[in-house]
């Protein structure tokens, strides 16, 4: 294990302790058994991430973490959404919403940035920026079913009152001096020019459907008022080249089309009957 890899491994684990007791939490009365389908993503490092909005701002990426005793919101994010913690580092969030339609009013949160998040974001280990952790205090209100062959989890609201996690009376959650690692890795990530999240390119909209043909793909249908249709593409046209590259299958076309962003130029060399022509148009923003 290389040194860098070994140090990075420390950032993957976010077991946390509470430095201070949570203030008493009043359980809002909500109908039990209500079911939510919560979309999630896996980070590059295989953390389970859900998206949240705090006081209608976001979305932010939070790790689903039974190893954390409470909801942790990074200090930077708390500032951005206008949340100020009390003297013990706790805050009440007016509205905490989890993607999939789950809205939690008056959610208790610790405003704190665990060093692991600092380091992980600095090194780009997750492949996306991580803004916080959802831990026991919030999770305990749901029965959660997680199946990695599906891309959504099922959460069912429970009607009991979970016990409150205890503060451990420790300074900075008992990380035993590891905190310095977060700073080191963040600095190192900066030196290496790392980004917390990759640059994302989306494909532009063309408005056509292709079938594989004998030698070249063939246009199956065209949306007449879509970009390709307005430029004159017609069903039955045989597509030989896309942006000066020969294509022999639908897969070829899709592969090249992935690199055409909205506003990007599209040049299709087509054969219609005996005639070979080039159709030019611009990809649009949409799906």
């Amino acid at each position, binding site marked *: 294990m290389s040194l860098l890899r070994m140090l990075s491994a420390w950032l993957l*684990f976010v077991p946390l302790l509470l430095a201070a007791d949570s203030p008493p939490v009043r359980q809002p009365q909500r109908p039990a058994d209500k079911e939510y389908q919560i979309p999630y993503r896996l980070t*590059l490092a295989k953390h389970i991430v859900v998206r949240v909005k705090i006081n209608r701002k976001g979305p932010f990426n939070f790790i689903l973490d039974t190893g954390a005793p409470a909801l942790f919101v990074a200090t930077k994010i708390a500032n951005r959404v206008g949340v100020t913690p009390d003297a013990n580092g706790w805050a009440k969030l007016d509205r905490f919403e989890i993607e999939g339609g789950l809205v939690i009013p008056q959610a208790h949160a610790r405003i704190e940035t665990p060093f692991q998040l600092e380091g992980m974001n600095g090194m780009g280990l997750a492949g996306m920026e991580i803004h916080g952790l959802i831990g026991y205090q919030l999770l305990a209100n749901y029965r959660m079913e997680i199946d990695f062959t599906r891309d959504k989890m099922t959460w069912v609201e429970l009607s009991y009152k979970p016990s409150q996690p205890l503060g451990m009376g420790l300074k900075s959650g008992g990380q035993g001096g590891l905190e310095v690692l977060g700073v080191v890795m963040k600095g190192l990530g900066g030196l290496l020019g790392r980004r917390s999240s990759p640059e994302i390119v*989306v494909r532009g909209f063309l408005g056509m459907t292709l079938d594989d043909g004998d030698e070249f793909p063939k246009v199956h249908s065209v949306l007449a008022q879509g970009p390709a249709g307005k430029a004159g593409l017609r069903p039955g046209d045989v597509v030989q080249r896309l942006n000066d590259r020969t294509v022999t299958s639908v897969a070829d076309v899709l592969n090249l089309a992935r690199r055409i962003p909205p506003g990007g130029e599209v040049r299709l060399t087509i054969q219609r009957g005996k005639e070979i022509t080039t159709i030019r148009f611009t990809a649009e923003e*949409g799906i």
Partner: protein
Amino acid sequence: MSRRLIMTLLLVVALVGILGADTTPTVSQPVQVPFVLLRSGHMAVEVKLNGKGPYWLIFDTGAPISLINTRVAREAGLARDLPPALLPGLSAAEVKIKTLQVGEQKADNVSAIVMDHPTLQAIGSKLGKRIDGLVGFPFFARFKMTIDYQTKTLTLVPSGYKPPDVLRAMTTALLGGNSRKSLSAAAQWGILVGKEVGDEADGVEVRFVVPGSAAAKAGLKRGDRLLTLDGRWTDSLIDLHEAAARVPAEVATVVRIQRDGKELELTITPVRGF
């Protein structure tokens, strides 16, 4: 069915059975694992490592890999896999646990990191219960798991999911191999959208619904605000593509929109195309 065919099938079943017994001791029925809720708010489960134990580990959905401390790694016969510590106190070694058993459920060849994590030591000493590690993704990802804090049980049923190698993924990330990603819708909807710079409201604006498209047939209109697609927020063009990338053609999908100040849902069935 011919006698010979039946015999062949029986033989195949028997062989699969033997192979199965050798390679996957995993229980295929749902297994309920009781957990102890520590006062610190963590779930502790009883774990056996290569038949040794039981040890108490924290069941941690936030751990991308399992973690065990040096002491139990040695007891479980993993000591010869441990290299000499490079940095005292910061060492971390990678091992494969032959069988990791949580309650009555098992998985084999589970990757783990051996490290003495100060937070786990702190939990142990504060609560007077020795905590020897974390159960992480390479174990639990193989199961459909249900976590119920009310009954304090964890239910594990094999799902067939094969967790990818986390450490390899991390190495890729460290090499900076993840700086660009391209996203495409998996089907054709016929929705052209936009969002002005400075528009911070939820959703994206529908600028044009292509006549004859799937979205037009479902009644989507220009000027609608597209809020969610298949339960996923569509607050940006990237979000919209991220959501549409997961919906294949011919799957009826609920989209939530805002029209004339009211929220409503439409069902769109996208078609093949792009």
